[in-house]
């Protein structure tokens, strides 16, 4: 075999792998966008479902997902940032710190369905919150926590020690140095991490299955103690459980497209924050 042919074959192997990965994304995006676009209309995103879910829009599912993601943020962001501040600014390298770090890494690897069981046992049954928006939001908050801690700590680590020392040197307490100097400069990095984590939480289905999501709520109130609809669960039900599956397929495609748009918008805003920040530096 000539050397040239060999090198083409070798290079080709890598190129085919990369091409296949791109092909997967193209197929996924093409199928959902081309078929979902037909169902997408102003009515689809602003109307209630009608006729046993075979017609109408998905407004309650959109509202449910937005509220759920907001609660997740309210639960996980303060908790996660505080924990990251402790780890990066205060903790010394002792066994407690090492156990905290090991716990965070392991929590990040716990399957999402197990978070669902934990939410069911702790919030729904243990604390008598029932299957509700707040139970599901707390469950997703716990799921998001390790990612927010990890990304926040990374953002804090990027702030040079001299910044903190300068604040301490002019007489600030450690809290004042963190609040007035460290956090403001780390905010873009922290926000990027939070928004990326939320984009993942918005698409999660398994943790909310037993903690509060419902297929149909005829009066979506948005109250914390009531069940709610959500985009990912709606897609799951439309594509597997509906009695007229073929008939509702366009609705399922439309739901999939809206879900992907929501997730990508969150991703894009994270990249925008990162991009704007890197330009300022």
């Amino acid at each position: 075999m000539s050397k040239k042919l060999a090198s083409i074959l070798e290079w080709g192997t890598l190129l085919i792998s990369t091409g296949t990965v791109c092909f997967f994304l193209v197929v996924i995006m093409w199928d959902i966008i081309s078929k979902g676009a037909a169902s997408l209309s102003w009515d689809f995103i602003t109307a209630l479902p009608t006729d046993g879910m075979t017609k109408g829009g998905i407004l309650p599912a959109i509202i449910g997902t937005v509220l759920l993601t907001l609660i997740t943020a309210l639960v996980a962001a303060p908790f996660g940032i505080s924990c990251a501040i402790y780890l990066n600014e205060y903790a010394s390298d002792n066994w407690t710190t090492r156990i905290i770090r090991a716990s965070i890494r392991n929590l990040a690897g716990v399957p999402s369905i197990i978070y669902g069981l934990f939410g069911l046992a702790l919030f729904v049954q243990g604390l008598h919150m029932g299957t509700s928006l707040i139970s599901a939001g707390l469950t997703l908050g716990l799921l998001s926590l390790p990612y927010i801690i990890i990304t926040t700590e990374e953002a804090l680590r990027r702030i040079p020690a001299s910044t903190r020392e300068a604040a301490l040197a002019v007489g600030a307490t450690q809290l004042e140095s963190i609040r007035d100097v460290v956090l403001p400069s780390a905010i873009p990095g922290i926000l990027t991490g939070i928004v990326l984590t939320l984009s993942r939480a918005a698409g999660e289905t398994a943790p909310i299955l037993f903690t509060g999501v419902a297929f149909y709520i005829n009066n979506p109130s948005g109250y914390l103690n009531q069940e709610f609809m959500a985009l990912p669960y709606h897609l799951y039900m439309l594509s597997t459980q509906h009695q007229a599956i073929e008939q509702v397929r366009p609705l399922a495609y439309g739901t999939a497209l809206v879900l992907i748009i929501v997730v990508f918008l969150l991703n894009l805003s994270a990249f925008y924050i990162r991009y704007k920040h890197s330009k300022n530096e």
Partner: protein
Amino acid sequence: MQLAQREQIDKVARLLFRTTGLLVIAILGGIFLMLLWNTVAFFLKVKPMDFITGTQWNPSGSQVSYGILPLLVSTILVTFGAMVIAIPLSLGTAAFLSEYAGKTLKNILKPVIEMLAAIPSVAIGFLGIVVLGPGIAHLTGQSNGLNALNGAILLSVMALPTIITVAEDAINGVPSSYKEASYSVGASKWQTLIKVTIPAAAPGILAAIMLGVGRAIGETMTVLMATGNASAFPKGFFHSVRTITATIAIEMGEVPYQTTHYYALFAIAAVLFLITLAVNLIGEHFVNKYRKYQEA
């Protein structure tokens, strides 16, 4: 404000931050205790040996049995299939990204991988039903293509971004002096990649694979939607299977609280938890090995 007061506030804040740190341990401990508690309750009613060696999962039939084997074998089968597809593809892509692709191509490929990672699992499962399923059915002549192969392909798509990103970091981290030494004795780019760079990055690549395995084992929605969920003992890639995660998702919504069946679902979740814990610990071991190696 008085200095003493400011210092007081500082102390309180420090305590608060520390408390949240300790709460993280409590959450992992809480998950562990919840699984343990319910698993013990299960083993008070069902013999552990019947659970571990039972070949039938049939919680609602006349002959009730809680054997985990069919679920465990299904999970392993689908994960194994996913890795057979994902490992070569992601290593090829990672090597291409770090060794061959120019800056422009990299700037296109990186967002592609990030987008793939961002797609929700339920959307991928949906495509398993509407695109991959009919495709497999057409090729094999089956009535529907909801089987282990379908699930494995979808899981490989989900594991790809994780493995590619971490493996690329590992390949990038190999010191350039290694490659230069290889080039200087006349090795080609490919020979250097296969014989020098990849072996040097091996611990990092193994850590990447372990992360991918962990994701695939714990994934619920894609397998729930794409594998058909037949509860019979799995026969192969072209048959319907029912993984541990799918079983929990299907049955937990229907069981009354604190019945044997309810406890049984926590018991299989405990097994899943232990498997992912072991996979993560193995991955961490490789990460540490790689780090030491790089520092040396």
